[in-house]
């Protein structure tokens, strides 16, 4: 006897949220409070000792944030999740559970420019090293694995060009190496790609982008797939060894298939501190309710705009995996059959100067450093998000000097095309 499984859109509206038992409030209340009273001294001790489920202090957990966590966990097919202040915070918290000084994270070279910065420079001061591999060449991951490798990190749909990563092939490399595969699923969202179904052990998001979807609230989240055995060797002591912070409990032994999310909460978020505001959690939750509808429109518009640009005489090339003949079209059909996302790049025959002109002539597209808004956005990566890279690295990461990146919104596609048309001919 098995119960029927609800569909994605039902989960997007309902997962994690139920009417408030006390007031009957149907929308999720914003629990804008720092702390929560204990039932009695023993209850307080039980909560601090991780023996009971409950709320202590909003830096560790908050009921509004918990609804967001359960909802994204359900949408991704994970066992649990932890919401944090930003996508960058999610990455720090994840890696803190896995890495010790001298350890290595093996990352795809095509990443969000901010992640490349964080991995290369900020993590260096923790003694965490990064090795880079080419997501278009799976064997480059195999070659880069060393005894110090503790995790592999990729993006499902990769910034900035919207290229599609062969998640299953890289998951096989991670399994062979005995390390977890972490997938940043920000640009795809679980509506388009569910990395856990393809072998990911951990999924991270910037909730700021399509999940929140309205460009109004920062947030990040970590989803535990519940698939990785942290105790099979001594590689992950945060999860397998007695923790002095909690009188010697072992996190995996105690929390089973949601141990990683708990470690991120009680060892990572508690001690590093990047908590998400409950107000932001509420805004993002409201956004997620319409995620399927928005993603359908984002993808439909992106395809129409990409087709228009591909036929325009001023355009040298369009990199959109949803176009037949694109380098990533096969992978897009496999991993993202509902749509290839709404972030892509194109290059102009007029080079760098034409790119700068285009950006300044657009009247509906907003020139800013974000993606995944209801509004259509444009940026020139080489001078902004990827400006810290040298020219060769810019080309390798898909941000060559003549490249313009678009994030297509949910406006009427005819208006977006008209805006691009006037800007290209201005």
């Amino acid at each position, binding site marked *: *006897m*098995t*119960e*029927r*499984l*609800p569909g994605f859109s039902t*989960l997007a509206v*309902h*997962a*994690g949220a*139920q*009417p408030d*038992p*006390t007031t009957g409030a149907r929308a999720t209340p914003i629990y804008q409070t720092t702390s*929560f*009273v*204990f*039932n009695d001294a023993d*209850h307080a001790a*039980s909560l601090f*000792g991780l*023996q*009971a*489920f*409950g*709320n202590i202090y909003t830096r560790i*957990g908050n009921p509004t*944030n*918990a*609804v967001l*966590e*359960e909802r994204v*966990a*359900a*949408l991704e*097919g*994970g*066992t*649990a*999740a*932890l*919401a944090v202040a930003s996508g960058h915070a999610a990455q720090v918290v994840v890696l803190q559970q896995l890495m010790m000084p001298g350890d290595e994270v093996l990352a795809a070279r095509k990443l969000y420019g901010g992640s490349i910065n964080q991995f290369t420079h900020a993590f260096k001061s923790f003694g965490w090293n990064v090795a880079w591999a080419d997501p278009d060449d799976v064997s480059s991951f195999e070659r880069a694995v060393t005894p110090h490798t503790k995790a592999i990190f990729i993006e499902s749909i990769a910034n900035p060009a919207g290229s599609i990563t062969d998640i299953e092939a890289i998951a096989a490399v991670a399994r062979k190496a005995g390390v977890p595969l972490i997938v940043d699923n920000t640009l795809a969202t679980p509506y388009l790609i569910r990395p856990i*179904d393809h072998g990911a052990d951990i999924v991270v998001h910037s909730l700021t982008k399509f999940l929140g979807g309205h460009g109004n609230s920062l947030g990040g989240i970590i989803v535990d*797939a*519940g*698939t*990785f*055995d942290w105790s099979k060797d001594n590689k992950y002591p945060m999860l397998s060894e*007695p923790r002095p912070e*909690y*009188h*010697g409990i072992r996190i995996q*032994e*105690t929390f*089973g*298939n*949601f141990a990683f*999310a*708990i470690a991120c*909460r009680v060892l990572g978020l508690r001690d590093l501190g990047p908590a998400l505001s409950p107000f932001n959690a509420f805004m993002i939750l409201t956004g997620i309710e319409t995620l399927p509808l928005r993603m359908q429109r984002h993808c439909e518009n992106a395809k129409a705009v990409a087709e228009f640009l591909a036929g325009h005489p001023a355009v040298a090339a369009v990199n959109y995996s949803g176009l037949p003949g694109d380098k990533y079209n096969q992978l897009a059909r496999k991993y993202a059959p509902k749509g290839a996302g709404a972030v892509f790049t194109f290059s102009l025959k007029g080079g760098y100067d034409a790119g700068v002109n285009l950006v300044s002539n657009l009247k509906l597209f907003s020139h800013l450093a974000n993606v995944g808004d209801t509004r259509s956005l444009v940026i020139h990566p080489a001078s902004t998000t990827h400006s810290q890279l040298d020219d060769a690295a810019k080309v390798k990461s898909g941000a060559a000097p003549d490249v313009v990146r678009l994030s297509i919104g949910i406006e009427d596609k005819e208006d977006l095309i008209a805006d691009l048309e006037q800007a290209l001919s201005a």
Partner: protein
Amino acid sequence: MNHDSYDDNYIRGILNGVKSIAMVGASPVNVRPSYFAFKYLAQRGYDMIPVNPGHVGKELLGKPFVASLSDIGRPVDMIDIFRNSSHIMPVVEEALRLPQPPKVIWMQLGARDDAAAEKAEAAGIKVVMNRCPKIEYGRLSSEISWMGVNSRTLSSKRAPIPVQGQRLSLNRMSVGGGNTAASDRAAKNKSELS
């Protein structure tokens, strides 16, 4: 009976129906998972009996340890076995020899013995394997949702008002929510390998 997955109503029925639980393998060490589960269930009103021959003469949260099921000296509704799979069968056989066998035999997360389950079921005993009653209670009451855990339930109904501060009721109407198929597969592969 399919022991790969359980209907929520089956688990809810068991946790709502039983009043006394003998925990075989209960530990007095306050960082062990069995201690966590024992304490949690005791706080939810279950009449808990710790069974562990290594700790006779000691108490667990005020309850004296007994050496074996036959030493309990009164009928119990459920036996929760906190031992690994290879130690399940003798406990089940002992339970079946009791003057009044339990209504439910529950094997802890990670523990599964299909032959033992079949024996118990043939005697009319309900069986749950590879689950934790604390986690299931937390999941079906949605208390576990406070930890960001996927409870795999959805509900549009208002649950009973908490009676004791941060403690939610098991008596909640829900339907199935988001599944965790990848984790279930990984657990199955691991148990087949070991």
